[in-house]
C-alpha cells in the first residue's frame, strides 16, 4: 500500500473495498467466538483489517479472501495472547472426553436457537472452535488445520467429537425440559 502512486493506491483501495470490506461482519463473528469479549473482538477485527490493507498486494484476487482474513486474525490473536502471556499448552483432554461420550444420542427436535447456542457454549473450547469454523463458517478441513496450526487428522477428530458432544448436550437439555427426541 505504501510507496506507490496515487492512482495505484486508489486502484488497490477499490479492490480491497470490493473483496475484503464486505467480509467485516464475518471476521468480527469469528473474532467474537474466539475472544468472547466485544471490545476485544472489535480491536482484533480492526487490527486484522489494518494488517490486511498493508499486505493486500500479497493477496491473489478472486481467491478465498475470507480464509485469508481469518488467517490474519488467528495470527494476530496468537501474537496478542503471547504478549499477554496467555499462550499455554492446552492439556490434551480429547481422549478423556471421547471416552465419556461413547454413544450417538438422537437429535432432539423443537429446540430454539438460544438453546442450541447454550449447548455450543458448554462444549470445550478446542471442539467448539472446530465446530464453528467448519459447520458455521464453512472452512475446509485443510483451512481449519492451517488456521489452528494443527494436523488435519486432529481437526477431523475434534470435529467428530465436537459434534457428538453437542448432540449430547442437546439431548440432555431436551431430557431436562421434556422435549421429544427422534431416533
Amino acid at each position: 500500500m505504501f510507496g506507490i502512486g496515487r492512482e495505484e493506491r486508489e486502484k488497490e483501495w477499490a479492490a480491497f473495498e470490493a473483496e475484503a470490506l464486505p467480509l467485516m461482519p464475518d471476521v468480527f463473528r469469528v473474532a467474537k467466538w474466539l475472544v468472547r469479549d466485544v471490545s476485544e473482538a472489535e480491536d482484533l477485527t480492526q487490527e486484522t483489517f489494518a494488517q490486511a490493507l498493508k499486505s493486500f498486494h500479497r493477496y491473489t484476487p478472486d481467491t478465498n479472501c475470507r480464509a485469508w482474513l481469518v488467517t490474519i486474525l488467528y495470527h494476530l490473536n496468537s501474537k496478542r495472547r503471547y504478549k499477554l502471556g496467555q499462550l499455554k499448552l492446552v492439556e490434551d483432554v480429547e481422549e478423556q472426553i471421547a471416552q465419556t461420550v461413547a454413544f450417538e444420542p438422537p437429535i432432539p427436535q423443537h429446540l430454539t436457537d438460544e438453546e442450541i447456542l447454550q449447548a455450543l457454549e458448554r462444549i470445550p473450547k478446542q471442539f467448539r472452535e472446530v465446530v464453528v469454523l467448519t459447520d458455521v463458517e464453512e472452512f475446509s478441513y485443510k483451512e481449519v488445520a492451517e488456521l489452528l496450526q494443527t494436523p488435519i487428522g486432529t481437526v477431523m477428530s475434534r470435529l467428530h467429537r465436537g459434534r457428538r458432544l453437542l448432540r449430547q448436550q442437546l439431548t440432555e437439555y431436551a431430557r431436562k425440559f421434556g422435549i421429544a427426541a427422534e431416533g
Partner: protein
Amino acid sequence: MRCQEFKELFDSYLGDELLVETNHEVLRHLENCTACRNELAARRELRTRVRVAVKNAPEVQINPAFAMRLQANLRETALRPTFLEKIKSNNLFGNPAMLGAAMCVFLIMLGGFFWLRNSSVPKDVVQSNQPDNIVFPVKSPTETNLMQAVHIAWQEMTRHAVGDHENCALEHNLTEEPITLSEAAEKYGKYNKNLDKAVIAPLREVFSDKDFGKIDLLGAHSCAFDGRRFAHVVLQYRNRRISVLVTDTDLPIENENQVLAQTSETMRVASFRTAHHAVFVVSDLSETENMTIAKAISPAVSRHIEKIEKTGA
C-alpha cells in the same frame, strides 16, 4: 460398504471432504440403507440449525457504527499520500526553511504514528447513540406456507421500493408526477406531513462527526412506482443518493423493532416496520453505511408514524 464404515465417514461426507470414489460408495450405500439416510438427514439438520443459530445470534453481529468508522479509517490510510509524495509536490528540498518545517512535521507524525499504534480507535465516539446489534436473518428451514406468502409479498414491496429509488431519486423516470408531502398528508395519510423532518433530525446528530462526512436533505415528496405509493425523502451522502421510502402495508410483522438488511441485486436495502407501514432505506452505499442510516432514523421515524397510527392526529 457397511453401516459401521459409513458412520466413520459421516463427518467427512457432510463436509464434502471425501474423494470422488469414496463419495460414490457412500451414495450407493445410502440408496439401500434407510437408517443411515435418516441419521445423515438428522446430522445435516443439526448442522444447519447450528449455522442459523450462530449467524443470527445478536451478540456476534458487528456494530454498524464501529464498522463504518473502521472503514473510514482504512480508506484514509489507504489513500493518504506518502511522505515522499508530499515533499515532491511541495518542492521542500529547494527551500531550507520549508525543509526544516517538513522535518518537524515528520517528527510529529512519527510520534503520532507510535501513539496511534499504541492506542485503539476511540470506538466510544462512534458507538454513542447506536444500538448494539444488527440481525441478518437466515431463512428458517421450517418456514410455513403462510410465512412464505408473507415473504414473497414483502420481497415484492422491496422490489417496488428499489424501483422507486432508481426511477425517482436517480433517474427521474416516473410516469406520474410526484406531489408534495402536505398534499399527500390530505390524500394518503397524515404521516406524510413533516416526515422529512423526522428523517433528517437524527441523521444530523450521527453525521455531525467529521469522520462520517455530511448528509444532506435533497428533497421530499409523495410518488408512486408500479402502482405502489411511497412517501419519499431523498438524501445525499458522499455524492450518493439515498431514499427513505414509507408505504402502507398490513403484512404481519415478523421482526418487531428490528432494522433488517435485505438482499437486492442492484441496491443496498434496510427496512423496519410499524403496525401499518413499512420503511425502506435504499442506496448504493456499503451495507454497513446503509444500515447505519436506517438504524439512526428508525426510532424517530417509527415514533412519527406510530403517533399518527395510534391517534390519527
